[in-house]
């Protein structure tokens, strides 16, 4: 094993760039900031690839099992005996895989943004934020400590906030940024409490130790943790459930998904990077990271995850069918795909063939990152071209944007699970894993998969077909800088499916055999094709979807009124029900008491002013009265002795 300390440079390079551009990006590096950022990203990517190569092919495997390595660890903050936040690097297959994904997609987005964001007033700042995000995300995937993950989790959240709110003068962007941050923060609350619970049960925050204690079958730690109960569930289950809530927040699982569509207010490359490929899969990554713990300490939670995942997948797919904003459709599709990854984890077992779900989930994560980034970047080109997000403003663009058209089509095929594109392989594995474990989940997933094909091609047709193009004929497709990333990603969408993923990534580090089962694949592929055809049929005419009056359509279009429910809870219950009374209470009761003590004193003072009547005889009468009273008191108290 080589000296791995150089891994530190992978996340630190973007950090340095962030600091440089953050401090001086506005003035000195506003123009050149993009190039600095891209260059550093390139270095990071190369290093990641090199690491991945080394890990997977050279030194990572010992005795046929991929090992955990902790090449670097620094105690960042001590809490107490055994509990400390360490900043460390944990290398295992999923880390390395994620490292590659993050740095690679980030590089693509960096390059793409060079052209896309050109001429922005805050170009340098944009790259600073992008670098901050990349740093945080890299830090997240490298984390060796559950609290470290939480830290980077928060940082990721804030960089997402900054990037969504990049157009800070747009009220909707600010609102979306706030919404994204607050919703995920709320989820993080769950994660935090979950961490507290787990830390208490395992007496450690370190992943390696944690997995050793709570992720090893039959360990006494598990027995202890399972014994203590709260509301009928073992405490550890609660803890893991809460941790999952954190993951669900970032990964936009129902019902914490509401921020994701709004987050599309950010610049499109940002959506590609954060809200499609990397950050939103953090939840999946987190569950995968703690997978042994889930499996052995709280299998019930895992089942729950499966249901949440598949429901989210279906739910999002349904909504995606009716949305008219290109980016929102993609956002819902992202949500849906993450649902796939989630339930894949949920139906997975640990080790051997049982662990297919795990591998499939990670595989899908990998392929999805590539084709979803591609979709977004294409969408960016389209939006750039028509200056609108609305599908109604588009149509027939295949002549104007030939490269984009092709790339988009490839990506759509990939996501729809049409062989031989990348999505097919990963999705197939997921479905297989679900089929073996849970038939209900499998059925829903199958349906969702068909729906995916339908709405993706709805999008595709609406953008590129069925409309005479007239108004935007004069634009060129864009600079090569814009197109190169598309092409690279398109190649990725085609080719990555062929990677024997199971050899590299699995729950226990041992290879999983993932052979393609042709007879199993027939159904999903056919269903996918049906979806595509349906889309082609329905949307070939302009201004289709005339049945927009039907109730179901309306409900779907309004995203099942989830936003309204949230609005009701926040505005009516939290603001008016708690905040206002609290403020009122403070102003009137607590403050009122303070003021009241003042007024009452003044009142008393005023009411006894008559004592000082100005009449000398009254004074002396009081004098005598005083003497009499005191004498009586003295006689009463002291004369009896």
């Amino acid at each position, binding site marked *: 094993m080589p000296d791995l300390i150089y891994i530190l440079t992978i996340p630190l390079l973007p950090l340095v760039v962030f600091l440089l551009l953050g401090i001086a990006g506005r003035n000195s590096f506003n123009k050149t900031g993009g190039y600095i950022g891209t260059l550093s990203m390139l270095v990071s990517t190369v290093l990641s690839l090199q690491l991945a190569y080394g890990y997977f092919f050279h030194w990572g495997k010992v005795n046929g099992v991929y090992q955990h390595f902790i090449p670097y660890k620094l105690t960042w903050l001590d809490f107490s005996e055994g509990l400390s936040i360490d900043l460390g690097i944990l290398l295992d297959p999923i880390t390395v895989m994620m490292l590659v994904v993050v740095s690679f997609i980030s590089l693509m987005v960096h390059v793409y943004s060079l052209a896309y964001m050109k001429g922005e007033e805050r170009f340098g700042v944009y790259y600073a934020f992008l670098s901050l995000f990349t740093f945080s995300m890299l830090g997240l995937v490298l984390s060796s400590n559950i609290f470290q993950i939480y830290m980077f989790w928060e940082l990721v959240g804030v960089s997402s906030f900054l990037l969504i709110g990049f157009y800070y003068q747009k009220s909707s962007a600010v609102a979306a940024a706030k919404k994204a941050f607050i919703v995920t923060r709320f989820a993080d609350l769950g994660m935090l409490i979950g961490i507290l619970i787990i830390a208490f049960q395992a007496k450690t925050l370190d992943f390696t130790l944690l997995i050793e204690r709570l992720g090893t079958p039959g360990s006494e730690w598990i027995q202890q943790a399972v014994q203590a109960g709260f509301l009928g569930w073992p405490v550890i289950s609660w803890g893991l459930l809460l941790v999952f809530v954190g993951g669900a927040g970032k990964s936009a699982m129902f019902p914490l998904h509401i921020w994701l569509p709004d987050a599309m207010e950010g610049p499109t490359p940002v959506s590609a990077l954060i809200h499609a490929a990397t950050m939103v899969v953090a939840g999946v990554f987190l569950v995968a990271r703690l997978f042994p713990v889930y499996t052995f300490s709280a299998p019930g939670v895992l089942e729950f995850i499966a249901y949440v995942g598949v429901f989210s997948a279906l739910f999002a797919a349904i909504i995606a069918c009716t949305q008219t904003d290109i980016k929102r459709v993609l956002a819902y599709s992202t949500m849906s795909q993450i649902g796939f990854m989630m339930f894949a984890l949920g139906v997975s077992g640990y080790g051997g063939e049982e662990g297919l779900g795990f591998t499939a989930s990670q595989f899908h994560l990998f392929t999805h990152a590539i084709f979803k980034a591609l979709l977004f970047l294409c969408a960016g080109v389209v939006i750039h071209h028509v200056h609108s997000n609305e599908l109604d403003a588009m149509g027939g663009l295949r002549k104007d944007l030939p490269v984009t058209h092709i790339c988009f089509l490839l990506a759509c095929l990939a996501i729809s699970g049409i062989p031989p594109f990348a999505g097919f392989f990963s999705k197939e594995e997921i479905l297989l894993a679900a089929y073996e474990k849970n038939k209900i989940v499998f059925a829903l997933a199958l349906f969702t998969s068909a729906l995916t094909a339908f709405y993706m091609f709805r999008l595709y047709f609406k953008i590129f077909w069925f409309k005479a193009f007239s108004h935007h004929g004069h634009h060129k497709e864009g600079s090569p800088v814009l197109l190169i990333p598309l092409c690279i990603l398109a190649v990725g969408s085609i080719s990555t499916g062929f990677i024997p993923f199971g050899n590299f990534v699995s729950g226990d580090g041992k290879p999983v055999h993932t052979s393609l089962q042709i007879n199993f694949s027939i159904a999903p592929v056919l269903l996918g094709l049906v979806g595509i055809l349906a889309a082609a049929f329905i949307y070939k005419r302009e201004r289709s979807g005339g049945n927009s009056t039907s109730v179901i359509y309306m409900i779907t279009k309004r995203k099942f009124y989830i936003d309204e429910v949230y609005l009701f809870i926040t505005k009516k219950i939290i603001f008016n029900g708690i905040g206002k009374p609290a403020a009122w209470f403070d102003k009137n009761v607590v403050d009122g008491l303070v003021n009241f003590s003042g007024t009452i004193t003044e009142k008393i003072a005023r009411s006894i*002013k*008559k004592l*000082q*009547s*100005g*009449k*000398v*005889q009254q004074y*002396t*009468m009081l004098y*005598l009265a005083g003497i009499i009273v005191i004498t009586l008191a003295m006689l009463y108290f002291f004369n009896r002795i």
Partner: protein
Amino acid sequence: MMEPGLYHILFLSTALFFTGVYGFFSRRNLITILMSIELMLNSVCLNFIAFNKYVWPGKLDGVFMTLFIIAIAAAEAALAIAIIINLYRSHQTIDVSSGEEMKY
């Protein structure tokens, strides 16, 4: 009736004292108030003499107290009358209610 003795004199002087106090409280004319004070001081003198005579004749403390009280009473009365006369000049009355300007 009993042979008069210490207690008789003490009761007498107490009565006298509180008669003075009553006068102090109830009169409106400043000079009559002053007169009431003289009554009170006199009763005290009587007390001292009675104690000196009946209880502590070994020393003349009571007598000296009385003497000095009488002297002080004179000085006090003189000063009080001067002040009252001055008040009369400024207020044109010696009713005690004239001096109620400062209050509360």
